[in-house]
């Protein structure tokens, strides 16, 4: 520990004003503060400050993502090995999963951080912690067969257009991880959707097809019994709940999303209003759809709606991003509810994009400032003026 402290101390001169790498000071600072949390001097009242700071704030989100990450690694490897008749033991699957997932995570963090550093150096401000979360969320919402180049292009778009051009963390309108995914979705549709992307097949083998629950429903007819088809495809409610089926790397397990959501709600990092509002929105809308409309999706029960696709992951980890979601309490309920509502609407009435949650959240991100504005106008308007 002393050694580390000395190391930073002795090298600081190269990165401060007049040093060799003066321009790279944000990088040095970010590395140093990663290891040694600065205490900081208080310059004005109040002379006590809470111990929480943004690094802690963000690392709680990462903590709640760890179970999903580990399960995602295992499940990706397991599905790949299962399809290619290889070793499906715990170690075998986990190892295979690591070879698929780890490069994606490394690419996501390294490319994203490179952009962050470039922007920090140009703008001469400190590297913000926001990317710690984005860099981990992003690989978890990619299909396993995505190429590393595509992943790098996606995260570059997400960081630059989704965040940095607005001024960096705290000033972005859209969730950067979802922006990155949406970009890939429209730029490389064949690598992001369809039936052949959900299982990693390596470069030499033919793609292995596997229908996701959403595409099964999208291809079904009105008279089909969805639950029966799900069961035939090995997608019982239990499987959907625990998540051992092909899909995006980290978002298949509704159970672990639930655990992660619980951590976020207990620590107060994620808004329970958004999460519960979203679930209520999804359940009521899907119930109304199944009651009033004659479409294949009408046969999907609300519970199945909750478990299939990326809804659980999206509402817990994407919709609760404080920057791109509203800050007012009632707005958060409305915001969450409308995400649930739009998810179902997109799933049911738009066969081109069976995965509705990504677009629903991005769409509501745009409306978050409006919701906040209306609520603050109403609440502040009730104040007795003080002039």
């Amino acid at each position: 520990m002393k050694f580390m402290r000395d190391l930073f101390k002795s090298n600081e001169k190269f990165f401060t004003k007049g040093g060799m790498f003066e321009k790279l000071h944000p990088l040095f600072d970010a590395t140093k503060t990663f290891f040694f949390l600065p205490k900081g001097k208080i310059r004005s009242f109040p002379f006590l400050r809470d111990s929480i700071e943004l690094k802690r704030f963000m690392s709680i989100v990462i903590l709640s993502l760890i179970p999903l990450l580990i399960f995602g690694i295992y499940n990706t490897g397991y599905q790949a090995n299962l399809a290619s008749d290889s070793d499906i033991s715990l170690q075998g699957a986990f190892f295979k999963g690591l070879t698929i997932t780890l490069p994606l995570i490394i690419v996501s963090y390294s490319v994203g951080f490179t952009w962050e550093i470039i922007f920090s150096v140009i703008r001469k401000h400190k590297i913000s912690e926001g990317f710690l979360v984005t860099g981990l969320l992003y690989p978890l919402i990619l299909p396993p067969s995505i190429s590393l180049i595509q992943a790098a292009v996606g995260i570059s778009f997400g960081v630059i257009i989704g965040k940095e051009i607005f001024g960096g963390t705290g000033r972005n309108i859209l969730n950067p991880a979802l922006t990155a995914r949406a970009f890939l979705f429209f730029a490389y549709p064949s690598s992001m959707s369809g039936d052949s992307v959900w299982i990693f097949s390596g470069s030499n083998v033919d793609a292995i097809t596997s229908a996701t629950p959403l595409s099964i429903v999208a291809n079904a007819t009105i008279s089909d019994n969805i639950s029966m088809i799900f069961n035939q495809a090995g997608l019982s409610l239990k499987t959907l709940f625990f998540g051992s089926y092909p899909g995006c790397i980290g978002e298949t397990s509704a159970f672990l999303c639930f655990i992660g959501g619980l951590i976020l709600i207990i620590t107060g990092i994620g808004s329970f209003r958004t999460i519960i509002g979203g679930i209520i929105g999804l359940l009521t809308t899907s119930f109304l759809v199944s009651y009033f409309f004659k479409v294949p999706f009408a046969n999907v029960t609300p519970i199945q709606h909750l478990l299939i696709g990326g809804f659980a992951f999206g509402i817990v980890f994407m919709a609760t991003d404080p920057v791109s979601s509203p800050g007012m309490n009632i707005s958060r309920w409305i915001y969450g509810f409308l995400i649930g509502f739009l998810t179902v609407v997109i799933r049911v009435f738009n066969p081109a994009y069976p995965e509705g949650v990504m677009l629903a959240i991005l769409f509501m991100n745009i409306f978050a400032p409006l919701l906040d504005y209306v609520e603050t106008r109403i609440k502040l308007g009730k104040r007795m003026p003080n002039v």
Partner: protein
Amino acid sequence: MKNINIKKGYTQVFDVESRLEKAISSKEVALTPSRIPFIKPKLLVKKGDLLKIGSPVFFDKRNPEIKFLSPAGGVVKNIVFGERRVIKKILIVIEKEEYEQFESINHDKISKTDRADLVKHIINGGLWPLFRELPYRDYPNKDKIPPQIIVNLNSPEPEGPSPSVYLENEENNFFAGLEILNKLSDKTFIISDASDEVPDQIDKLITHKVAGNYPANDPGTFLYHIKKNIPENSSWYIFGQDLIMIAKLVLSGKYPTDKVVTVSGSMNKDDNLHYRVRVGAPLNDLVKHTYDDFKIIQGGVFRGYDTSDTPYSGYFENSFNLLKKEGEDALFGFVMPGFKKNTVSKTFFSFLNTGTREIECSLNGEERACVNCGTCSKFCPVDMFPNITYKAVYADEVEEAIFSGLLDCVECGVCSFVCPSKIELAKDLKNAKSEYYKEQV
């Protein structure tokens, strides 16, 4: 008597025992004009001048009638200036204790005295600025008749003197003070914290008991919760101990020199106690141990001043807090469980720990952009959205800032305390408020 419950805010940091110690009699005192808000002090004395108790030392250039008097008789030893010739302290060595004699009014005659005479009496006695006018908290114009005066038996600091201590044997002075207030205004509220014990005679007079976290008993918070119309916004307030001082001045014709202050803090090696001291007495007279490496905060850890270089009891400040300076940077500080961290967030395990917490005068992080987490709104005692007001101030949108309740801000500092991005919300809002005030005058 009504009870008011205020849920927001933050709990008290230190407990102070309700025991009164007499401090060692001071050899020197200091006046610290830079800590009196808004005034533009101009000196009336120079080095070597001989002063009596009650001799004017400096006055407010904005209003030359308002003078600040010496709490001790002696020689001006030194006048220390700070940056931009701010008067940091005026040091007086106590020699001969002679009183400057003012006119005195008998207790029974107060009600028959003319309001203007009474006001003039208080102004000449140098205690008029103890009255403060909301929402800006400057001293009020003497000719104005306030909609109401709020007497706060507690102190603006959460660790300030308890009414059970300073009201002891002062009941008569307090009653005289109330009669003075009746001359100044038609309506008087007497508020006290629900958890404090008040002598029975005075307990009967209390109109509102306020329960809740800091700053529930702040006059601004109280007013926000009871006000019924717009003119009430410019109510006056005074603290119980200050009212007793005014009463003593009026009754005896002598400038009152004593005050009860408290000493507390995580680094205080003695017990956290009350002391009766002379106004302007140095901290050395109160604590026996050394305190050179500590931060000394006066006027409450949340809203006070860092007075590590001039720890003298002040005109307004009634408490000393001895805090630990910021320590060394912690290795992987952001992932440690943190059982003893002082925090309102549940991201540390200290929310399970009801025992002692580490209290340290440190920022615990670095300033970042606002991430719209909404924690400040959750704790604001007057239901503002400090982040939104802050952004309006930041963008120079004065109208918008006022619409969002800037003037209701009670300057308590809780928003800055809870902010995970370490934004100086309270300081910026307070500055914006006083900027606006200065433009109006």
